[in-house]
């Protein structure tokens, strides 16, 4: 018996429907999932060319409403116990989202013991370990901590959530961002993480130079880059990136020869492994013009201090990274001219357009 073509197509169509029903198992309960307006990150062309795509957790996509809510929360002291301290208190836009003080002061007047980390390019933190000691394993998890840290915002999440829930605007903003007016700490963290992922810096003069604009940098800056890349001089590239790694960090933990006796164990506190004592995350070298003081404990007030440390101030301790050379002599002893060039190169990785970006300022 012949099947007419039209009927055959019809059967084919029906059978396809059947297949969809048979094969797809997870669309059975078509509960209407709320989706806010997608807002993909604007990826700098140099990142596009050399790096992996930004890391965005599947359960926290970037959205217009989420980023906007995160920005409002980031600048709002409502998250602190006494309504005096916001994320932005210690992560100020004009400082590339770090604190110009060596140690930030919490709401009870107690100082911390590490320098606030600058915030940018968070979606390219490939191993997803946050904080100087890597104790948070996602950006969302990182956001949760300062709110309850007794020497920072010293709040409880129950109290912070209740303040937001009783606020005249926040329940509606959470509704827009996440489809619910029921606020919890996880949604707060998601919103702030979304905002933080938009803090992208990839258009410094040196980026423009690498992308082909020969006029974007000076000869001194180019000399400085050569010192940076020279194993016998700066040898900075083993931890701090290169022309193909425009993050300017390896996102890995090192003991960079600061102390003979380790008092802050850093990564060692987190892993419990004494071989990790005194290891801290390599920070990116972007925006150094705005991020003083330097090091995990903010011990160096100037970039000259930092360069001098690597040049002649290294001291030995058991976990020191082998990349710290000539420790017996304190380092490789750069010439004054090399130091000056190296510094101008480092500063060419700073981006005024990042710290002044209107989308990153206080909306409240």
């Amino acid at each position, binding site marked *: *018996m012949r099947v007419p073509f039209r009927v055959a197509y019809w059967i084919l169509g029906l059978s396809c429907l059947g297949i969809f029903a048979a094969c797809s198992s997870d669309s059975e309960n078509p509960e209407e999932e709320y989706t806010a307006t997608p807002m993909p990150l604007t990826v700098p062309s140099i990142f596009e060319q*050399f790096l992996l795509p930004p890391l965005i957790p599947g359960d926290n996509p970037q959205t217009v409403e989420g980023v906007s809510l995160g920005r409002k929360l980031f600048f709002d002291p409502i998250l602190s116990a006494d309504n005096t301290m916001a994320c932005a208190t210690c992560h100020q836009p004009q400082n590339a989202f770090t604190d110009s003080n060596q140690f930030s002061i919490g709401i009870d007047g107690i100082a911390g013991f590490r320098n606030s980390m600058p915030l940018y390019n968070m979606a390219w933190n490939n191993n997803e370990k946050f904080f100087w000691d890597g104790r948070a394993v996602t950006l969302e998890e990182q956001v949760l901590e300062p709110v309850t840290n007794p020497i920072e915002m010293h709040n409880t999440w129950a109290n912070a959530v209740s303040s937001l829930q009783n606020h005249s605007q926040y329940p509606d903003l959470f509704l827009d961002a996440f489809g619910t007016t029921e606020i919890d700490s996880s949604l707060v963290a998601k919103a702030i993480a979304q905002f933080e992922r938009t803090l992208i810096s990839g258009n410094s003069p040196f980026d423009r130079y690498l992308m082909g604009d020969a006029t974007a940098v000076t000869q001194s800056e180019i000399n400085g880059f050569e010192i940076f890349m020279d194993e*016998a001089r700066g040898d900075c*590239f083993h931890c701090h*990136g*290169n*022309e*193909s790694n425009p993050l300017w960090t*390896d996102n890995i933990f090192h003991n960079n020869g600061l102390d003979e006796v380790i008092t802050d164990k850093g990564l060692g506190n987190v892993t419990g492994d004494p071989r990790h004592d005194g290891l801290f995350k390599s920070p990116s070298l972007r925006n150094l013009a705005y991020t003083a003081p330097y090091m995990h404990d903010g011990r160096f007030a100037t970039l000259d201090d930092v360069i001098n440390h690597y040049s002649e101030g290294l001291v030995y301790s058991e976990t020191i990274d082998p990349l710290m050379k000539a420790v*017996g002599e304190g380092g490789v002893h750069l010439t004054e001219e090399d130091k000056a060039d190296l510094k101008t190169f480092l500063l060419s990785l700073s981006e005024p357009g990042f710290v002044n970006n209107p989308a990153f300022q206080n909306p409240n």
Partner: protein
Amino acid sequence: MKKIALLLILTITLISCSSDDDSNTSQNASVTFDFTQNFNGSNVTEDDFGSAAVYTNAAGNFMSITKLRYLISRINLHKEDGTVISFNEYHLIDLETASSLSVTPPLQVPKGDYTGISFVYGFNEEDNISGEYNDLNAVNWSWPSALGGGYHFMQLEGSFDDTMGAPQPYAYHNGTARQSDGVFIQNFIEFDLDQNFTINGDTSIEIKMDISEWFKNPYTWDLNQYSTDLMINYIAQILMNDNGQDVFSLGDIN
């Protein structure tokens, strides 16, 4: 007509729903490469890093290891009939990243008799292109352009006791060798490891690195002489290549 329709539906459903768990009957099998490291036969893992273990190289230097990363590319399996199965991939093995130590390429290989495995340690000249591989860029694996560019082939780091017994750092980094300004010597090594084996089903192949070989055969490497600044040291780079010739061997295949 109903019968035909039913057959049509069944066939299409079967085709679209069948997953690839038919390896028992298929002519192909998947291959897993297990990268293991040892020092003169004693196993080296991340657990042995730093103060956890002291090794003695051929020159008698007491040394520890704090980092080991290396690049393997262009793995080929050689069939008895002369055909070559090419995995056009590269793998950065990092002892601190467990997932990098065992790799199962998506390409399946025909069952049958094989006579050996070949691969490139590092990248050959054609593959060693600066900035080309974004995953390697992101883990800071590039080799400076003043030294010929491309990528590192290996980073082996740690500490050794100098002649006074004092700890000193070493960074045994290997890649393209710069002979003079703008003159570069490709420094990769092609390994051709002959061994007969049969692939009947999914198979794992162990590729072993004996780290101690980097320090001997033919050149007995004294870390007091060559410890740091080795990337820019042409002689050291060539000696690494000489010593590297016997570093890899095949282990268990099953």
